[in-house]
Structures are given as C-alpha cells and as structure tokens.
C-alpha cells in the first residue's frame, strides 16, 4: 500500500521536469551504493581513474555533483548521472559517503617527483590542503574542498590537466597558487599526493 503511494509520488516526480523533492524517496544507502560500481564499495575506489569519494566531506561531494550537473565542471559521465537526482539527494549521498573511511590508494609513484611535489605543496597549497593534503581548510572562502593525499594518481593527473587547461574552474584563491607553478610542478604534485598514505 505504502509502496503504491510512493510509486505515485515518483510518477509525479518523473513527469515533472527537474525531479522535485519527494516525500518518500530512496534512502541514502540506496542512492549511494549504486555509485560503487565505478567508485568502489562505499567510495573506496580501486582506481586508477575513478576517484576515491568515500570519506570526502559531504559539502565537497554535494558541490561537485552540483557543478557536474550544471556543466560548470567538466566530466565524461558524472554530468549525465547527476542530472537524474534531486539536488537534495546530493546532500544525502554526501552525508552517507562522508561517513565512510577514506581508504588511501596503494600505488606506485616516482619518489623524485614526489619529493619535488612536497616542496611546492608546502609553499603554495598547504594553506588550504592542510596536513599535507589530508585535510581541507579554507579559512577565507569557507568553500568545501577535497582530501588529496592518497587519491589515485591517474585521476589526479587528469584533474590537474583540467585545471591547467582552464576546463575546470579554480576555486577562489587556488588560481593564484597555480599561476606560480613551474613546468613539471603539476605532475610532481600529483605524485606527491598519490604517494601519501
């Protein structure tokens, strides 16, 4: 009986554009676990090109989904997927995934590049990507941001290229940091974060 009324609500939701909030809708676990086929069980990606999302902050996950949906952030598949959820589903999924452990990737990295990346990080990035990229803290803009350390190298390289090619917009304050990068620094930074536990 209850299932029936839920279906009717869903019918209304599917017919109207933009999927309004449903009185009864899939639980956070239901919504979030389907992401696991690409992002790994509860967001602990086995990589290498799909990012670890388990343990990222709810704010960052929701902000990313919003940006994918609106086309502000480039994506191959996430934009097409994000369009099918209500915007407040992003918060439900963000909360569910944020409660999972961030399981750092175990992967091979270049030690020389990582050492160089560390130096650059300390000068330009530690301010926001705190604790060597393990935490995020933007005191001024108060924007949500990601954990970088332990992320998959291949994903980081793709993302760095998107920033550098100006396909992915910089958050306030990060563009200045990137402007100071020298040739090869981006790759070194990616190796540094990827090498961190």
């Amino acid at each position, binding site marked *: 009986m*209850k*299932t029936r009324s*839920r*279906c009717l609500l*869903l*019918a209304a939701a*599917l017919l109207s*554009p*933009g*999927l309004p909030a449903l009185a*009864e*809708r*899939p*639980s956070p*676990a*239901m*919504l979030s*676990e*389907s*992401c*696991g*086929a*690409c*992002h*790994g*069980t509860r967001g602990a*990606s*086995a*990589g*290498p*090109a*799909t990012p670890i999302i388990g343990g990222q902050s709810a704010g960052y996950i929701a902000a990313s989904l919003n940006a994918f949906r609106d086309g502000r952030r480039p994506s*191959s*598949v996430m934009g*097409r*997927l*994000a*369009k*099918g*959820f209500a915007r407040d589903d992003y918060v439900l999924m963000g909360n569910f995934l944020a409660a999972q452990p961030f399981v750092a990737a175990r992967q091979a990295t270049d030690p020389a590049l990582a050492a160089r990346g560390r130096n650059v990080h300390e000068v330009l990035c530690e301010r926001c990507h705190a604790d060597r990229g393990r935490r995020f803290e933007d005191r001024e803009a108060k924007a949500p941001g990601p954990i970088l350390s332990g992320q998959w190298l*291949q994903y980081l390289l*793709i993302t760095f290229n998107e920033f550098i090619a100006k396909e992915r917009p910089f958050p306030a304050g990060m563009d200045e940091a990137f402007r100071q990068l020298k040739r090869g620094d981006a790759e070194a930074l990616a190796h540094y974060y990827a090498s961190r536990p």
Partner: protein
Amino acid sequence: MSTSRRSFLRSAAGLALGGLSWRSRAENLLPRSERRVVVVGGGFGGAIAAKYLRLHDPSVDVVLIDRKTTYIACPFTNRVIAGLRDLAENTVGYDELAARHQITVLPTEVTAVDTAAKQVVTPGGAINYTRLVLSPGIDFRYDEIDGADPARTPEIMPHAWQAGEQTLLLRSQLAAMRSGGTVVMSIPLAPFRCPPGPYERVSLMAWYLKRTNPKSKIIVLDANPDIAAKARLFRAAWQQMYKGMVDYRPAQKVTRVILERRAVDTGAETIRGDVVNLIPPQKAAPLAFQAGVVGDDGKWCPVSQITFESRVPGIHVIGDSCIAGAMPKSAFSANSQGKVVALNMLAVMNGREPDAPAHVNVCYSYVNDREAMSVAGLYRVLGDNTVFVPQAGGLPTSYTELEGIQAASWFNNMLREMSS
C-alpha cells in the same frame, strides 16, 4: 534432519519435486539455519547480493554457491578476442570475499531447488534457506535455429557469449583465419545479454583484422532493425575507421546453420564464413526453469521490481535472468540489482518497509584499442515497472581516449567489488 525427513514425506505424498531422488535430500550439506540466505550464482549479481546482505545485516547467514571456483567475467573479453588483453585479467576468486564478509562460499553445482522444502540441492547434499537469491545468468535458445544444437554448434561456430573456453576459441579462429577471409557474426533479437556487446566486438575484431588481415571482412547479420545500442556512435566509428571492412546488415535473422560448411541461412540468403560467431537468442539459465521462476514467455523471470521476488515466494531473481523493466542485461545492472535485492530482502525479513529502488547502469564500449564511449542510465520504479529516468543518462558526443581509460577503471572496480 527433521526437515529432510519432512521433505521426504512430502515426496512420498507426491508433491512437486523437480525430479529429485530422495537420497539427494537425505542429508544436509550444512547444518540447518533459521536465518539463512542462499545465493546461487557468484557472478556480478550474486556475489554483490551476498556481500551487501552481510554489509547491512551481519546476523544473516549467507551462503554463496557457484559451480566454478573462479569467475571469468565477460566484460572486456572483446579485447581478449582482439589480442589486447589476457583472459587471466578477467578472472577472480572468492577467498577474500568469503573471509572479509564471512560468507560461506561453496563451489558446487545446484542441481535443483526444492521450493516446497525450501532447500537447494547439490551433489553433496541439501542446504536449507530462509530466502533464496538466484543470479544464474543465461542459457541459449539453440532450438530456434535449424541445424543447431547446444553441444556441437558452439565448438564450430563459437558464441563467446559466456567467457572462458569460448572466448579463446573465437580468438584463435580469428587469428588463424586465412588472408582475405570472412567473419560472419549473427546477432539475435533483443533482449539479450549486453546490448552494445556485439557491436563492440565488431569494432574490436575490425581493429585487429585491419592490422593483421587487411583484406578480410566482417559481415554482421543483425536480427534487430538497427544497431541495438549506441547506434550513432558505432556507425560513426565503422565509417571512420573500418570502412569497407564492416558490412552491417540489419533485420537479417539467422534461422538455419549448416555446420559442415560453416554457413548460416537467413531464409533469403546462405552465407559462408571462414569464422562464424553465432550469438544465439537467449533465455534465463537452466536453474531458473528448474525452480519454476520463469514467466509465461518461457524465457525470462518476472519479478517484483521492488524486492526482486519471483512468482515463487521466497525466491528472488536478479541479473540477466530477470526482467527488470527498462534495465539492460548487463554486469552493471546485475551489480545494481544485487545491492537493491540485499536492502529490500532484508527489509522484508526484518519487517521494515522496502526502500524505493534507485539503479544505475553505465556500459562502456571500445571502438579501437584506446577509445571508448559510455551509455548511462538511471532507473526508478514507476507503478510496477522499472523505468529510465529521462532527465539523466544518454550518450557522449563521441568516443574518447578518456572514456577508454575510465572504462578500465570501472571494470577494475567492478571486479574488486565482487571479489573483496
């Protein structure tokens, strides 16, 4: 003990038994459990269902049964056929899954489901269940093709639609084909396992032949009125890369085969091939028929779109065998259904309202060694059907190297998810 006794008495009373001998029901393979879910089929659907049942409710005793000790996955086998991948990379075991989630994994054939006694029957004894999940995959409808039979036909005209020996056979036939030879591929009417799969195979075989056997060609006899998935992008890829090599013929249904001549017949025409990849029409796996969960179409299993419970109470069917509305028969769908069945079966067992299902399916296809394209879809339940969410999903504008990289990452995660 008392159960097998009771079921024996039922047997004597002449209740439906599916041709079991009383001896096979006499002993239990595992001690009886009052809170046990048995999952048959350790593929993309079954392994995920078993794992997520335990993730959500560690009080449930979960037994996962597959006839094989290792699972050989189908996705990416078209790359094996093109010589781009080793079949070993497609193979996973169950040890880590079993240990991490305390799942009892049994490598044995399930010969029958005794629905009256609520037990599955294996050569080593019976196992009782509170609820049963079947994710047994597919079987082939060779009986619809004159001159074809399930034993000899695949040895001569491999389907390579279940991974393993068949994949390697098609690979070796392709590699050994005479210079300038013809590959004939026959695609059945939808629905079948992996709608874009045949067209990806055409692309990757063409990629391989273009390098090794440039005068050869591929004749594609498709029973469907058009390419069944990603039509625009496959057409563009063939036009751009394999012009003159791929001869695609829609609405050509193979109705007869002549094995000795390696020829197929569409009623209008008989075509000989040096290699014939005959992908037969499909149906649910034999166990689904034995268990009595197949629908009136005689092919697939109708299920509740919310709990995946079949027409037989207590038996849930997921994966390729089931009918899940608009969802394609894919590994991704099976994975998604495995998670939904776990949540909603537990809801039923624990006296809660089932959750509204939210499914995802994304299928990647390669068009050459590096580039791929995805088709994405979200699915929700509407009335008693599972429907495509129209606001989401769809195709990218083109195939790209980025999606080729992301496809490999997806598959890596799929294999990890089901085996750990």
